[in-house]
């Protein structure tokens, strides 16, 4: 049987990816350029018995999301810059309480209201450092409509598997462009559900590390009673200020992502093996970069593309390795140097890192990247 094919907008693909992953609850607040995600799910979720609620603001949306997730639902919200700032409070809550949730954040110009309809890639730092305190961070940065669908499914899988919020951050171009997409059949892409308790309710502890760094999570209303708090907690979920417990729990929360980086990280290496110059790019910028790399190769320049698919965790080790054999990196991005700084931070000065930064609401074009390649000696 032929697979279902459609011509979809990125945001629509994210919504359908969520449904494929088993999302049954959406809470959000409208904001350009992410609103289509909410619009599609307001129509589709009730058809499958799911729930859609438009909350009074993004703080409330993130809160409702966590409440619903605690009842066992797979949950999604979508937003953009200003809304992401508001969601940060309860993203931190989801981190410390270890509640799965997926956040689509379509990147537009900032700070503040910035450029509501202009593309940007300037929220990637907010994905890691936006909420206060030490916490794990997973952030996916797809570059096509098909990939936005597939990475949304993966975002749910990672959230459920690691009991943590996961952000998926298409830039406005990826979110609003229309491309052909081939829907995977049910079962074709793996769908992961959170691990539930294997002990009876009397023995259940919501942060029982005897089951490993990611303890099983019971659902409210399923016969299990437990306490959830945003205070530093013990294995039984109750608050503590005991130094050694707080230290161990904080470290575990970060470790459950860091120690599983190999499972979470994803990137594409295109013509990197013999490359003298590697363009490190993500999202729509990586599409210009691929074009530039192909052009450069035609002109005898050994160029390659290192395309990030996860921004966090960042593939530091691999870039360090590559840095030993290249003459330079080029980092085009629609911000003032966020990815550039991270690349510099992991390659130990082995090669120059030349950034191309645009925050004027215009995409980075291949010519800019080709020009920059000439500076790599």
């Amino acid at each position, binding site marked *: 049987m032929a697979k279902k094919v459609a011509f979809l907008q990125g945001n629509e693909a994210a919504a359908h990816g969520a449904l494929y992953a088993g999302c049954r609850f959406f809470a959000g607040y409208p904001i350009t350029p992410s609103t289509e995600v909410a619009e599609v799910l307001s129509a589709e979720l009730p058809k499958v018995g799911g729930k859609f609620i438009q909350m009074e603001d993004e703080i409330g949306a993130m809160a409702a999301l966590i409440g619903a997730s605690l009842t066992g639902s797979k949950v999604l919200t979508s937003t953009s810059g200003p809304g992401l700032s508001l969601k940060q409070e309860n993203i931190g809550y989801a981190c410390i309480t270890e509640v799965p949730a997926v956040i689509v954040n379509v990147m537009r110009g900032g700070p503040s209201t910035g450029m509501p309809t202009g593309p940007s890639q300037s929220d990637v730092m907010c994905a890691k450092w936006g909420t206060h305190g030490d916490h794990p961070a997973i952030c996916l940065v797809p570059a096509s409509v098909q990939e936005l669908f597939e990475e949304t499914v993966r975002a749910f899988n990672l959230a459920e598997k690691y009991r943590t919020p996961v952000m998926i951050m298409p830039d406005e171009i990826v979110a609003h462009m229309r491309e052909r997409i081939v829907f995977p059949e049910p079962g074709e892409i793996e769908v992961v559900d959170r691990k539930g308790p294997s002990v009876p*309710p009397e023995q259940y502890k919501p942060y029982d590390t005897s089951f490993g760094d990611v303890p099983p999570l019971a659902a409210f209303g399923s016969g299990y009673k437990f306490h959830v708090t945003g205070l530093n907690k013990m294995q039984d979920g109750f608050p503590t200020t005991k130094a050694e417990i707080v230290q161990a729990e904080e470290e575990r929360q970060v470790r459950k992502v860091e120690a599983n980086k190999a499972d979470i990280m994803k990137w594409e290496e295109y013509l990197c093996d013999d490359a003298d110059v590697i363009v490190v790019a993500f999202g729509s910028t990586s599409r210009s970069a691929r074009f530039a790399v192909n052009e450069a190769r035609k002109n005898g320049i050994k160029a390659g593309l290192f395309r990030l698919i996860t921004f966090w965790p960042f593939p530091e080790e691999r870039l360090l390795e590559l840095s030993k054999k290249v003459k330079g990196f080029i980092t085009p991005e629609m911000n003032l140097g966020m990815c550039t700084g991270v690349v510099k931070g992991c390659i130990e000065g082995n090669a120059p890192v030349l950034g191309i930064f645009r925050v004027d609401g215009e995409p980075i074009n291949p010519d800019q990247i080709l020009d920059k390649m000439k500076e790599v000696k």
Partner: protein
Amino acid sequence: MAFDYDKYIRPGKLPHIWCPGCGHGIVMKGLIRAMDSLNLKKEDTCIVSGIGCASRLPGYIDCCTLHTAHGRAAAFATGVKMAKPEMNVILCGGDGDGTAIGGNHFIHACRRNINMTYIIMNNYIYGMTGGQFSPCTPTGAKASTTPYGNPDPGFDIAKLAIGAGATFVARGTAYHAAQIDKLIAEAIQHKGFSVVEILDDCPTTYGRRNKYRSVIDMMNRLKEVAVPVKAAEKMTAEQLEGKVLTGVLHKVEKPEYTEEYAKVIQRAQAAK
């Protein structure tokens, strides 16, 4: 026979953090008696709070309990209730939590008329942080951030709830302890968003700054200002000056949110 609170108290979680003379414990006992009178199943009951002394209440009760972020209880609870409408969802917290930082979530929960019960412990002050004024601190009162007297006018929580669309609104006091469970039980049984404001006291941060020499003084004040709604009907405006009405202040029937959403699901599935 004395009432057995242990049935709903989490083993090993007492003593509580509240100061001697704090009214929050009186409210907790009222809630437990109400839950018992309705025979609420612990595993099917979710108690949600924000941040503050009052918001520590859920930790002591042996149910599904969710101690959230400051002001956000109503929003978290809305997610729980929407996703699992069959659960009993009870919210609790302080005046600051519910009417300042949480004011937006509060009025929207009222507007949706989602079937949950919200117990607000109004001690007129931010107790936990040491006695800064709240939106419920009386004008002129002393707080740690109003050393010259509070210039702000206060909220009437019950009127706010009624205006925003709550379909059951009641008020009691920590002094009238025997009434609290009845008000809460009636609120829980009501279908829709129900609000129970309990006038409470904070001897530690409010009382001492405002010339209440003892907890007894504070309790006496609650006793003096409270007038049951029935009794008020026979009183003149002059007699009611400075008084606060107690009992069930508002009770109407309106469509309930999760039931309305169930109809959305039916419509969507019929159109499929």
